[in-house]
């Protein structure tokens, strides 16, 4: 019979497809600096997935050089010059297989996945292996359980009476078992003896029980161990809150690159914290010589002339923490973006010390100087950077071209110097590394 029913399938396709995706991931990791610096990603709101055009991978082979433009044979009505369609540069996916150049399949990636790839790249554990960070918070007192001792005002009458009734029935049964007499006689004996077992037994033996009652009317009998008191407990709650206090020096010239660098850094910090905490708030503080709370739009837009007092921002952060974000209930991240000028570095340092003493998770300082030249490290560092180095005894290093100064041991202070797009990834890595975020 030429028509046969098949043997079961092998699933080889799925397995090998996984290997292809793994290889694609390797490519994505290589492209991470570009991907995370992509403006169309960092300015988007809400949506948790981004679409990135990723070429399906192929093996190299000797092939003819083609121009940058693709071409091919097609069929249908039309003449030279007719436009058949467009393929947008970014964002929109093309329908696979419908358009020329089907090698590109736009792959959707969740932001979470991008963060995971960053972790993988850093050799850090994956997200599902981490727990949501929770804080145990005392919110007052509450009535907890019932205990056998306590102050008189906390006596739990209802429970105590229940215990007393139980003792009554218990006594009655025991007396009946002991004497073999009927329930009514035993009850009268107990009543006459005021609930004392020994006395009741004695009354029965001396046959001096007065049969004053004809039915059993139970009453509670209290012993010291029958007293029940309410327990007062400390009330706590697990909360998972984080706040980023984002601060920016708005004095001096504004340029797109400065805005972009701080925006990109903040975007990814927020996205990261959203993976770790259930609730993430972000407050924006703009400052020149004085600091004020502004909206997100203004934060990236406004600029002003004149001098700079960084301490004003840190001072405002301190009072925000006191009023709205106590560190026993909030994980607090303070990030300051500045070009390194400061009118009063002593006070700035003072305010930072206050923040750290308050127990914030970290203070981050991002120096945004796209126009600065590369020799900066060896020659003059900014005034503020130098002060930080000295006062906090920071250790300096360079990672993937990014200059970093960080607090030693447990000092949660990180300074990074962003001058170009390529710095975003190493900056994030320096933040994610060593569980700095998780203090």
């Amino acid at each position, binding site marked *: 019979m030429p028509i046969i029913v098949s043997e079961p399938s092998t699933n080889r*396709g799925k397995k090998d497809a996984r290997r292809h995706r793994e290889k694609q991931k390797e490519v994505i990791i290589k492209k991470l600096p570009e991907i995370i610096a992509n403006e169309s990603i960092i300015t988007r709101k809400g949506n948790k997935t981004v679409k990135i055009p990723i070429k399906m991978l192929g093996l190299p082979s000797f092939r003819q050089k083609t121009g940058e*433009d693709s071409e091919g044979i097609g*069929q249908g009505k039309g003449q030279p010059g007719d436009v058949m369609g*467009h393929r947008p540069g970014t964002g929109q996916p093309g329908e696979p297989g419908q358009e020329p150049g089907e090698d590109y399949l736009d792959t959707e990636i969740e932001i979470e996945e991008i963060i995971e790839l960053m972790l993988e790249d850093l050799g850090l554990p994956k997200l599902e292996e981490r727990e949501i960070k929770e804080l145990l918070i005392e919110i007052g007192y509450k009535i907890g359980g019932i205990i056998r001792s306590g102050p008189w005002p906390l006596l739990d009458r209802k429970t105590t009476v229940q215990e007393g009734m139980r003792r009554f029935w218990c006594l009655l049964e025991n007396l009946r078992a002991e004497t073999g007499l009927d329930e009514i006689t035993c009850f009268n004996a107990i009543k006459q003896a005021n609930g004392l077992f020994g006395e009741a037994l004695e009354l029965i033996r001396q046959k001096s029980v007065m049969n004053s009652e004809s039915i059993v009317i139970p009453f509670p009998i209290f012993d010291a161990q029958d007293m029940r008191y309410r327990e007062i407990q400390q009330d706590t709650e697990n909360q998972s809150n984080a706040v980023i206090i984002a601060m920016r020096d708005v004095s001096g010239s504004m340029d797109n690159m400065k805005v972009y660098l701080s925006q990109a850094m903040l975007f990814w910090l927020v996205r990261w914290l959203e993976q770790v905490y259930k609730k993430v708030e972000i407050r924006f503080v703009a400052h020149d010589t004085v600091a004020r709370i502004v909206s997100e739009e203004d934060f990236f837009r406004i600029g002003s002339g004149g001098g700079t007092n960084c301490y004003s921002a840190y001072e405002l952060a301190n009072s925000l923490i006191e009023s709205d974000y106590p560190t026993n209930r909030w994980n607090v991240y303070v990030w300051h973006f500045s070009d390194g000028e400061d009118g009063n570095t002593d006070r700035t340092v003072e305010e930072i010390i206050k923040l750290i003493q308050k127990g914030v998770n970290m203070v981050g300082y991002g120096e945004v100087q796209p126009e600065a030249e590369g020799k900066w490290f060896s020659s003059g560092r900014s005034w503020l950077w130098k002060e930080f180095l000295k006062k906090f005894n920071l250790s300096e290093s360079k990672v993937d071209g990014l200059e970093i100064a960080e607090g030693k041991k447990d000092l949660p202070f990180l300074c990074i110097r962003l001058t170009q797009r390529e710095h975003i990834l190493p900056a994030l890595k320096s933040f994610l590394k060593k569980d700095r975020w998780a203090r």
Partner: protein
Amino acid sequence: MKQQDIDRLITLEQRMKEIAQEYGLMTTEIDFEITTAQRVLEGMSYGFPINFSHWTFGRDYEKYRTIYEHTGSGIPYEQVWNFERPKAFLVETNPFALNVLVIAHVYGHIDFFLANRYLCHGRSFSDIAKEARNASKRFQDYEERYGAKEVEAIIDAGMSIKWHRNSDPFFEEPDEETVREELIRIERAKLERFDNIESKFKKLETPEEIAQIERRLEKLSTKTPPEPTYDILKYIINKSPKPLKPWMVDVLTVIRNQARSLAPNMKTKGLDEGWATYWHVRIMRRLFEEGLITPEEHGIFNNFHAGVTRESRAGFNWYRIFLSLFEDIKERWDRGRFGRDYEEEQSAQKRKHWDTGAGLGDKKIFEVRSFYSDRMAVEEFFTDDFIRQEELYIWAGLSGNNGEITYMITEDDPSEIRKMLKENFTHYGIPLIRVENGNHNGQNHLMLRHIDNGYELDSRYAIATLEKIHKIWGKKVFLITRANDKNETLTYDYDGKSK
């Protein structure tokens, strides 16, 4: 699939075979396997019913599956293999009428397999399906023993160059010593000629000439390959100084054999699909006329047929265009629209109504199916009239600012279109590259040369491919090619260190 459907399919299959024979198609016993869509998708991606694991197969599987599951098109339609006992898949979840169509279509393919000289040659290799099935087990074993990454690297390398071979599909690469002996014999004959032939026209050989021949002879005794070879993979398998371990030789040999057995299919893909489509239309029509399928089933068939032969704005739909080609050839030869008289006729009116009643259509299409490759068919039958009738054009994707690409029709001149098609169908777009020296610099370096056919190689791909070759050659590899339309020679090389 219900047993009664299977029974009906068996009855229909028998009738279809008879119809095929009545039409003059060659037939044989075919195994039709009723299976899942997934297995057919795997078959499409792996080249054989069961084959070894590789991520490129997985990638194709993922692609076909995505298209199948999300767009509803690309229904696993037919998979048939050119084996000694051919095998084809039917998908259990496909509509009944579609499975009938697949059987009709497969009968077209089988005739093509049995009659086309390229495909007969493709079948002449050992039982390639069995070899693929066995290889899948052996390769798995290698993965466990030598590591999946290492096995993958060897497969990657082999796959990168698997299509490189002599451009004559019937050419059997002789072994190196045979070639060497033959070349030495020719040179010796030249020397003897100087000694033996007495002729007054004979120039006296100069000592230089003799010395030259002797030098050549000396060189020949050690030169490898004695004569340049296009079968890069075979040369590496035999001569790699790496040296290759037995399992690596096995992996590369399997890859080479599979490519050699599949190459004839690539050479005739258009004619093969066109032929099968041409006959499935006729077989299905007969079934309908004989009342063996219902009007409703015939309607479903028509729908699928229309889908498969839909025109593609930005692609070359083999099914549609080669179906039209066979119909066009049949009509032309039936009406005598060929030969000098017809071709030299200038009057469009006369050409339009030209009919000598020659009635040679069937004979001609059967001849084409037996002896032609796609390239030959394009050259001979893609006439200006045919290209215009089919409304073919060349499109280009032009990139603008911000990365947007605009697709535009750029050319409808039939001779330009024919030129492009011919290029695409020659060596399946694979450049000619030959091994010139396996002991370059006296250090076992591999010297490859790109035989210029007017096109420059893409340098990034060339270097990446050399890296792959280096993986299985183990020593430095060179590629000589030409750049920038000038006669400038370019040499790429790779010695294992990334640059």
